[in-house]
């Protein structure tokens, strides 16, 4: 009873209670958000209403009517608008996916080179980083496309590489592997070969551990795999075939083709983003305790092994969150493809808006696609981050 009274007396008044103030602050914040969102919605619907129209997404079912030169979703001008949107979205995602892989590889190389004991390598990496991260990306996109790619010889003077690959400012064409009728069966063959190769790997490792002799793990398992896969190919007859590109009147036919516009935006994004990733990698390597490297040295690991087995795995922990930011930037920056005529999400959407109207609806889809894909990339990076985080108690 006395305790309760004491508690009551010690309690500060509401407006001085920090817990109440915090809660009130959050309430105010939520209210402001709701009011702003409501105002924006009312404003948009009023504007559309006063122009005599209403929000509707049914226009997406009408015929697109315009052609798109490259797509991975089987589009043609007679298909509905949503298919055109899909073609643009997947094109952007293709650039982002290729860009993320290539920027990561180049970025790690640059980051490691920045710390190289070789003076020349170190300086080249420094100049690279300082040049490419300090020029606006749009300028770089236009530069790569107009000054580099368009300056490649014309189609009439197409450069042939042993007659199996071609390069001109109409694009690059190279041999492509096309699956044949027996591709499914052959895939099972390859799977089996993989298992056999793994067994060989384990056997060679055991031999190495028992006798201390050379293990030849790579050599023997790859050889086993290649022999089995080749045997399968020979037995089945139509597992896959190599399709060679051909030079035709105004371009190439067949094979794997890369358009100048795709190459322009991709190269610009990779080169630009790699400069940032390089700096992140450099910082993360420097953040790994010096003792780790010295311990690795003391164990007799070669410099390459020190980096690969000891330093980089630890540096990855620090590097993943900021690299996630770079991946998100790269994805969003694909929107600059409009400058070089690559049919990305923005290029297709602006065409849609101009032909069929419904700007608000189309751009709400654009916003949704960028946001959704960004969240997906973040989700993937968070999963990766959790996988490499130091577990409590093991250190």
């Amino acid at each position, binding site marked *: 009873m006395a305790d309760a009274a004491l508690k009551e007396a010690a309690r500060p008044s509401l407006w001085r209670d920090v817990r109440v103030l915090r809660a009130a602050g959050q309430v105010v914040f939520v209210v402001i958000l709701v009011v702003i969102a409501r105002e924006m919605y009312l404003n948009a619907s009023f504007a559309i209403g006063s122009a005599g129209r209403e929000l509707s997404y049914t226009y997406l079912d009408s015929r697109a009517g315009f052609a798109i030169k490259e797509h991975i979703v089987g589009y043609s001008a007679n298909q509905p608008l949503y298919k055109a949107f899909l073609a643009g979205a997947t094109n952007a995602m293709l650039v982002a996916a290729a860009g993320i892989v290539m920027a990561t590889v180049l970025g790690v190389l640059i980051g490691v080179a920045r710390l190289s004991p070789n003076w020349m390598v170190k300086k080249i990496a420094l100049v690279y980083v300082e040049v490419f991260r300090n020029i606006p990306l749009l300028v770089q996109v236009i530069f790569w496309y107009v000054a580099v790619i368009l300056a490649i010889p014309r189609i009439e003077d197409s450069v042939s590489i042993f007659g199996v690959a071609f390069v001109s400012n109409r694009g690059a064409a190279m041999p492509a592997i096309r699956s044949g009728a027996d591709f499914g069966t052959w895939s099972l063959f390859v799977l089996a070969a993989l298992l056999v190769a793994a067994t060989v790997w384990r056997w060679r490792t055991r031999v190495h551990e028992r006798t201390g002799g050379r293990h030849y793990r790579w050599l023997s398992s790859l050889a086993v795999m290649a022999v089995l896969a080749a045997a399968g190919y020979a037995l089945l007859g139509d597992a896959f075939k190599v399709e060679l590109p051909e030079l035709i009147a105004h371009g190439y036919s067949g094979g794997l083709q890369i358009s100048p516009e795709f190459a322009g935006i991709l190269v610009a994004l990779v080169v630009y983003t790699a400069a940032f990733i390089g700096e992140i990698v450099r910082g993360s390597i420097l953040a790994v305790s010096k003792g780790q490297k010295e311990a690795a040295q003391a164990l007799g690991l070669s410099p390459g092994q020190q980096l690969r087995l000891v330093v980089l795995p630890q540096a990855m922990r620090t590097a993943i969150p900021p690299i996630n930011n770079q991946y998100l930037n790269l994805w969003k920056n694909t929107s600059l493809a409009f400058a070089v005529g690559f049919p990305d999400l923005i290029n297709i959407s602006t065409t849609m808006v101009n032909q069929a*109207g419904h700007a608000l609806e189309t751009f709400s889809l654009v916003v949704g696609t960028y946001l959704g894909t960004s969240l997906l990339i973040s989700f993937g990076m968070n999963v990766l981050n959790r996988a490499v985080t130091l577990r409590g108690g093991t250190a």
Partner: protein
Amino acid sequence: MHSLAAKKTLALVFALAVVAMACTREEEGGEGGGTQGETQAAQGDETTLLDEIKQRGTLRCGVNNTVPGFGFDPGTGEIEGFDIDFCRAFAAAVLGDSEAIDLVPIDADNRFIALQNGDYDVLARNTTWTTSRDGAEGVAFMHVNFYDGQAMMVREGDFSSIDEMDGTNVCVTTGTTTELNLADYFGARGLDFEPIAFEENPQLQRAFISGRCDGWTSDRSQLAGIRSQWPEEEGGPESLIIFDEVISKEPLAPGVLDSEIELHDALDAVVNGLILAEELGVTSANVEDTAEDPGEGPVAALLGAPVLDPETGESAPLDNGLGITNNFMIDVISAVGNYGEIFDRHVGPESDLELERGINALWTDGGIQYAIPFR
């Protein structure tokens, strides 16, 4: 522990209550705004864009600044061209001053969004009148001021007609009707092609020069303009040919927002007046003299002078009821001349574009330009 949970619940309830309150207030505010608008409309003194322009004293035109002949800065710092003269004519009619214009350069992609946003008043930017632009984009188009058609430009000697262009790369500007026509025209002839759609003409020009594309398709008027300015180091205008084949009809017309019917009607009268002036032989050179002695027929009606009423036998000026002065065409014609003068000055055979009148000739000369009568 127990009391903390209770407090949290209380806080949540409180928060919801405040949010609900805010919403109700918002709703009332919204309704209030609506009522106010309705009252204004009922009183008939709602400010239309036409009134707003008169109060502001300048007319804002959304124009092109990249197409020679229609809207282009030839290096003088001022945009000139066919469309710009129409903007001047509009300003002369509404404000009595052809210089009271504010030119807003706008690209093809954003022209409609900017119009809907109210970034400018009149779209005078070689825009094709189509049904979906009329409907979905909410544009009210005026009389067609240029009957254009889509054409194909190639390097001299590469091809001699579009039928030879199977499997080619064709450069085109994004957000134009040409993108649709290109697919239809090639598709109908069973020709395969790759469109390379650029946002900006300069990049497109670089791509065309470097040989990235075999052809450049756009409105004939635009191609003629681009060809006329083709750099000498790239071979000059003679190195390019524009096929006579017409890929599509492109009726170009100025436009305003659907909701601004007063402005539309007034400016539509200007476009018609310019064409009628040519038909009646009123030019910038003779308009002043004609205005002094206009007679009592169609010329008088055009210039807002008293017209003889055949039924009553009395003469009275025609009240056009357009919200602009009756004699607006005097200001318009003295500022920019008639339709034929504007055409000849910027795009005609004597200009850099060297375009023939063709179907843009008056109906009396075998063309299809036919203005509504002033009466």
